[in-house]
């Protein structure tokens, strides 16, 4: 018996085929057929002509954008302080940020619900705010980690050089540190933005009764409309692809810059 290195990849290939490729084909099939199994693009046009589905897309994008912005605002200074500090225990501190992720998701949100109730009095008065807080609470570690990794690997000599050459602190940060940490920002953003568009469990549990993309798809399936549901899933998938390509593309440029 002898294996080539390639055969080690077979289990993953099988997994990929069974759980990713085939379901995707089924999804495409449903998206472009109607109840009678005939080919149609009405599901597709339906999505872009219905003010409610478009509104849901808008709401999801807005929610995701705000969440991402909040995460970035909170995470960047934290990651910067940690990444540039000389503390020996800084990996322990980073660990502390990741620690909440070890706790069960629904448990965390349930706890958050209680905290917010104490803070806000009546939770249901601020549905959008709650959703943003919930998502931020949930996804913040995903933003901190890549940022921290990038910033802590940043070559200190470059900032020193900038300062030596007469740049003040602000300018050094804006023109050296920030551009160099761009890869971290981009991967953090994509790790927060994409799940924030679909993670409707947070909204459900925090009593925001407006649908986002995830719940919209769910509602189509529970109304037995698999065709419409599949089409929305497909459109979402396409959006994610575009987003990834965009950030991925500039990420390479940024990396190129970081390599210098």
């Amino acid at each position: 018996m002898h294996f080539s290195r390639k055969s080690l990849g077979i289990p993953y290939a099988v997994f990929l085929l069974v759980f990713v490729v085939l379901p995707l084909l089924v999804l495409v099939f449903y998206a472009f057929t109607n109840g009678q199994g005939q080919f149609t693009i009405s599901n597709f046009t339906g999505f872009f002509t219905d003010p409610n589905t478009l509104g849901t897309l808008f709401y999801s994008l807005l929610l995701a954008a705000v969440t991402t912005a909040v995460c970035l605002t909170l995470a960047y200074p934290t990651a910067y302080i940690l990444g540039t500090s000389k503390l020996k225990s800084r990996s322990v501190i980073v660990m502390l940020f990741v620690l909440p992720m070890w706790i069960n998701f629904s448990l965390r949100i349930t706890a958050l619900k209680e905290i917010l109730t104490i803070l806000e009095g009546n939770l249901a008065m601020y549905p959008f705010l709650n959703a943003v807080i919930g998502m931020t609470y949930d996804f913040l570690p995903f933003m901190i980690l890549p940022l921290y990794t990038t910033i802590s690997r940043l070559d200190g000599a470059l900032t020193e050089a900038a300062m030596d050459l007469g740049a003040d602190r602000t300018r050094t940060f804006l023109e050296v540190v920030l551009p160099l940490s761009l890869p971290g920002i981009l991967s953090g953003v994509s790790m927060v933005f994409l799940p924030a568009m679909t993670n409707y469990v947070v909204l459900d549990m925090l009593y925001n009764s407006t649908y986002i993309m995830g719940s919209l798809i769910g509602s189509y399936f529970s109304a037995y409309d698999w065709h419409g549901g599949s089409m929305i899933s497909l459109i979402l998938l396409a959006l994610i692809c575009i987003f990834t390509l965009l950030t991925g593309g500039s990420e390479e440029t940024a990396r190129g810059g970081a390599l210098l």
Partner: protein
Amino acid sequence: MNVFKYLNILNFLKKREIKKAVFVLCAAAVLLSCGIGTGFRITAKAGEPDPDKTIVLRVSNWEEYIDEGDWDEEETIELPDADIIGENSVIEDFEDWYYETYGRKVRVEYSTFGTNEDLYNMLTLGDEFDLVCPSEYLIMKLMAEQELVPLSESFFDESDENNYYIKGVSPYIRNIFETQEIGGEPWSKYAAGYMWGVTGFVYNPEVISEEEASTWKILSDPAYRRQITIKDNVRDSYFAAVGAIKSDLLLSDEFRNDPDYKKNLEREMNDTSPEMIAQVQEYLQNVKDNVYSFETDAGKADMITGKVVCNYQWSGDGVYTLDQADEDDFELAFTVPEESTNIYFDGWVMLKRGIGDDSAKQHAAEAFINFNSRPDITIRNMYYIGYTSVLSGGDDPLIFEYAEYNYAAEEDEEESDEEAVDEEAAEDVVEEAAEEDEEESEETEEVSEGTEEESGGDEAEDTIDYDVSYFFGGEDGTYVITADADAMHRQLFSAYPTREVLGRSSVMIYFTQEQNAAINRMWVNVRCFNIHHVPVWAWILILALIAGAVFAAVKIKRRFHGVG
């Protein structure tokens, strides 16, 4: 206790939220497994059944909807005629019972589902079950689609002592199952009831009066803005909205006194005309901005923890909520809106695709229904689930005894010390009487009645006679529970609503595909953010932000290229 409550809440979350999430995320994977499944499915049905072979019965039921046994000793329900305790799960007991009774081995493959829609999707995807327990509207849908096997004639033979269902089903429920029809056939031909209830409101009597909570219109009442929860499912919400919109009509004397009241009521409550759907949409959009949340399970916990003051609820869960609140010394109440209430049932039906023409399997399936209808098993299930069974027990007194055990006024608690002493003395008398007298039960009753009068005095209005004869069978006054005075809006009322309330209940029929499509569309419209609501300044702001981002990106890129 708080810890348990907390754990309970978590349980809900785990079950529903995650299930839902997993369902959506894996929908595609499920689609696939169906495709592959068809290829691999082993043709188990081949050949004539061999009498020695174990029958495999595939049952699918709601989560936590059958007693799983393993009770503590203290949980034993001590009724005058029997002590009831669940040692093993009902499933195991059924397998043993079937072998002892019919001499054949049966193995139950038991699985659960979360919603009727999940079950229907599973069936469409090719999952095969022999016996399932959906709600009435899915039963109607399955009947209309001719997916069901009719119950056999022998199932209705009351002379067979093992036919616990037909001997024990409540005459009230039986009548509904025999008169409600789909395609000219009564439900009873295909379906045997399991649990039932009505919809209403659990409310906090310290904040809301019973009168306020007795109308569907409270959902849009600005006085309770963000303090009421509504069910996160389209059917229940639709029903409530119709009730609220047609409130004036439904409450008018003219409508009420019409000889065809019941028929008219069901017609009105099942109104799915385009105009009605449009009105419901508008109403529910208001409700969405007024209620605390659309909830699937969290409403019970939110009610108990006092986050909300009123909760649209199924009566079975109403009992649960009230019980849980009682443990925290927090008194809640249950009421049913005056306009109309949705009476619902879960029932057992056999599927053609599963049973086929396998008579041995059908026999086992019907035996499973009967076993679950045996009075002691019924009580175990009711105790475990907290819902009310459609069974009244027929000649067997156990189920009524269980209702009394749960809801009859307790004379030895909640009374002043002096009276408690009296009470003890009275109990001694009872015990002596029990030893001496042959007719112990009657004697006990007399004595306890006597006690009531003695201790009465200032608390003469402490108890009421709650008539449940309509359910247990017989003339008014045959089955009366002497309950605490507040029983009218407490657990007893939720478990066995009064005849008067049921007089204004209506069954919500299943909708045709077009109606369903229109109503689901309405629901999506209610729940979605409409893009037309985005103001112009917001668009300008967004465009500006995007332009800014692009500009920044380009600038950064240039700089790098410049440096590189």
